[in-house]
């Protein structure tokens, strides 16, 4: 059973380790998707609700309080389902209990009155009315994660829950709900839902087990989502969802880029004349979800959540590493940006060439679901889609895929990228321009040179300057690649990829260079 497996994993971890240690372990890589007892939900909740202690003395105080708070909010800030058109998919009569947990009908109406006619409420002249906001939330959640229709598009109950949480959050926080937030909430929802447990399946649970059940209770997905969403987006909204601050952050980004890679900076800014805010808006607001895809995003968020905790345990800020990660991603496509014109470069930036593992691996994932879960549920589908990629994901360094044309797609080693981003994060400006620039060179395979006239150039890192002779000798597969053809191609390249796990990034890049040169 999937649920008992979740309980087992959490029990195993919390018996050996204090909860507050998990973020550190997640950063170092010993508590990650690759480890057998990893629970993403546990990691994120630990950070969001500041859970501490081991299984015997697990501190769930904040979690409990937040759940209580949401219960109150939910009864006061009712979602106006009844104001939708009567034939609307989500229409719901006020008198009918559309929510199992809403059992206090009378109270609801009174509270609603109180909110709407509050004498002290500041007339902010909101741009959107309640019903307009609800409709725009529905429109966005209706098309959330189309690559995984089972999450929301085909699951009305999930949609309803997500809409409710976003609506209540908007009532409480925002003048305006902004697109993109629904996607962040969607990610958190998926994580919570995947490992949630229905208490009723465990009848006679001992005290320890019931603590775990409480922590993962499926009845409180919305409650936990609300608090986590609120905590995780607070700094993002300040920095990226306000237009003025977004422009400020874009300028800060430009300055950082200039420090670590002057060439890339001039290329984008002065030669191609692409204003960074044009593409950064999506990179930043969505924490790269669209750029790197959901699979990588889950892994990346593990690191962002954990890193934030190690910096300030009390404040969740997922933005800390983001600019540096974007610089690294940019460096990976620098060789292509260099030979692009304005249109090509912008296209590349807005369609970051990532290997979309979701699509190509869905069929095999489905088989895995059947193997394991017996009756595949929506939740199990995504769990195993993720786990299916463990082997592929475990060590190849940002290595460029097999076809050598414009459409080549990148695979990322999130672990390595976050490590390097943390290194950059900790550097002073001076270090960034010297040591940071070195790291960047490894990603782009290009090194910048500036002559006396101030002319900048970027050249491939020279082969002979690499202390890689030994490694090249040891590697046997790097010449095979260009000769493989036809039916064998699949096997060979698969083989190569396996081998590639043991290699260094420099070697991989070299191999690409050489095979391209040979091809020519």
């Amino acid at each position, binding site marked *: 059973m999937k649920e008992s497996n979740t309980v087992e994993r959490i029990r195993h971890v919390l018996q050996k380790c204090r909860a507050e240690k998990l973020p550190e372990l997640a950063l170092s890589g010993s508590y990650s998707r690759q480890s057998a007892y990893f629970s993403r939900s546990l990691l994120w909740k630990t950070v969001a609700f500041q859970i501490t202690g081991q299984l015997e003395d697990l501190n769930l105080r904040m979690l409990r309080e937040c759940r209580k708070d949401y219960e109150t909010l939910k009864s006061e800030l009712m979602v106006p389902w009844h104001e939708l058109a009567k034939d609307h998919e989500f229409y719901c009569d006020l008198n009918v209990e559309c929510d199992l947990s809403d059992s206090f009908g009378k109270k609801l109406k009174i509270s609603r009155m109180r909110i709407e006619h509050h004498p002290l409420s500041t007339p902010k002249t909101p741009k959107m009315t309640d019903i307009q906001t609800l409709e725009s939330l529905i429109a966005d959640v209706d098309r959330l994660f189309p690559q995984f229709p089972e999450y929301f598009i085909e699951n009305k109950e999930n949609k309803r829950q997500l809409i409710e949480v976003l609506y209540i959050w908007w009532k409480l926080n925002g003048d305006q709900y902004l697109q993109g937030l629904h996607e962040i909430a969607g990610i958190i929802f998926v994580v919570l839902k995947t490992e949630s447990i229905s208490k009723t399946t465990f009848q006679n649970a001992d005290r320890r087990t019931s603590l775990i059940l409480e922590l993962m209770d499926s009845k409180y997905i919305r409650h936990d989502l609300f608090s986590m969403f609120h905590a995780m987006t607070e700094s993002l909204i300040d920095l990226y969802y306000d*237009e003025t601050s977004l*422009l400020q952050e874009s300028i800060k980004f430009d300055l950082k880029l200039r420090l670590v890679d002057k060439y890339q900076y001039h290329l984008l800014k002065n030669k191609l004349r692409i204003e960074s805010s044009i593409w950064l808006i*999506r990179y930043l607001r969505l924490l790269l979800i669209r750029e790197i895809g959901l699979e990588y995003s889950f892994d990346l968020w593990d690191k962002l959540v954990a890193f934030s905790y190690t910096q300030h345990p009390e404040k969740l800020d997922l933005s800390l590493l983001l600019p540096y990660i974007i610089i690294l991603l940019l460096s990976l496509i620098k060789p292509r940006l260099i030979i692009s014109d304005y249109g090509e470069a912008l296209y590349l930036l*807005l369609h970051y060439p990532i290997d979309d593992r979701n699509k190509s691996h869905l069929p095999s994932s489905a088989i895995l679901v059947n193997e394991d879960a017996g009756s595949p549920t929506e939740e199990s589908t995504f769990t195993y889609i993720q786990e299916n990629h463990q082997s592929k994901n475990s060590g190849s360094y940002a290595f460029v895929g097999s076809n050598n044309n414009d459409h080549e797609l990148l695979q990322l080693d999130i672990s390595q990228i976050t490590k390097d981003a943390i290194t950059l994060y900790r550097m002073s400006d001076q270090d960034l321009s010297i040591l940071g620039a070195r790291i960047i060179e490894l990603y782009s395979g290009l090194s910048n040179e500036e002559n006396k006239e101030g002319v900048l*150039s*970027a050249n491939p890192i020279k082969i002979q300057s690499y202390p890689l002779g030994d490694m090249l000798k040891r590697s046997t597969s790097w010449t095979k690649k260009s000769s493989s053809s036809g039916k064998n191609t699949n096997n060979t390249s698969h083989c190569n990829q396996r081998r590639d796990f043991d290699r260094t990034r420099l070697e991989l890049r070299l191999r690409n260079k050489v095979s391209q040169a040979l091809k020519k």
Partner: protein
Amino acid sequence: MSTRKKTILKVIILGDSGVGKTSLMQQFINGKFSQQYKATIGADFLPKDLVIDDKQVTMQIWDTAGQERFQSLGVAFYRGSDCCVLVYDVTNTKSFENLQSWKDEFLIQANIKDPDNFPFVVIGNKIDVEENKRLVSSKKAQSLCASMGNLPYFETSAKEAVNVEQAFDVVARNALQQEESLEFSDDYTDAVNIHVDGDSYGSCGC
């Protein structure tokens, strides 16, 4: 530096959230429709090569987010446009009523020198819906377009590929006309001191 010289037409698509801007662009460029396109964040960008009366052009289509009214960012998105496509949803009255304000905002932020002659094209999308769901009549739309300066008007279905080709043909022609009427020499400078080592890189880069 590259000596390629091609005519680039920048086309920007505006309109309320959910009217089908992304679907129209996808239908025109890739000839396909999907029930679910994600909400556009900021803007998206797709190029398409076309031949208009024996002339090679590249159309750069900018698909924008419909929910937000950008200020300074709008300037960055709209600048240099050759044609602006205003889209509404025939089942959504509000989206129709907002056409004028999208047009005004565009004119202000794109810094159009001659607003009266700038080419706009209006598209009423989703005509594949049942007749009783349609809330904006052709007549009403046509009279609005006439009042906004005789703007070309098309009714399309991105879903069933109705009229999309035709609408974008007019968009392209009008954009080309606009582009050719502009003096672009004054805008062109390449004073930046960047040297791309074409030989050593080009030999292995592509």
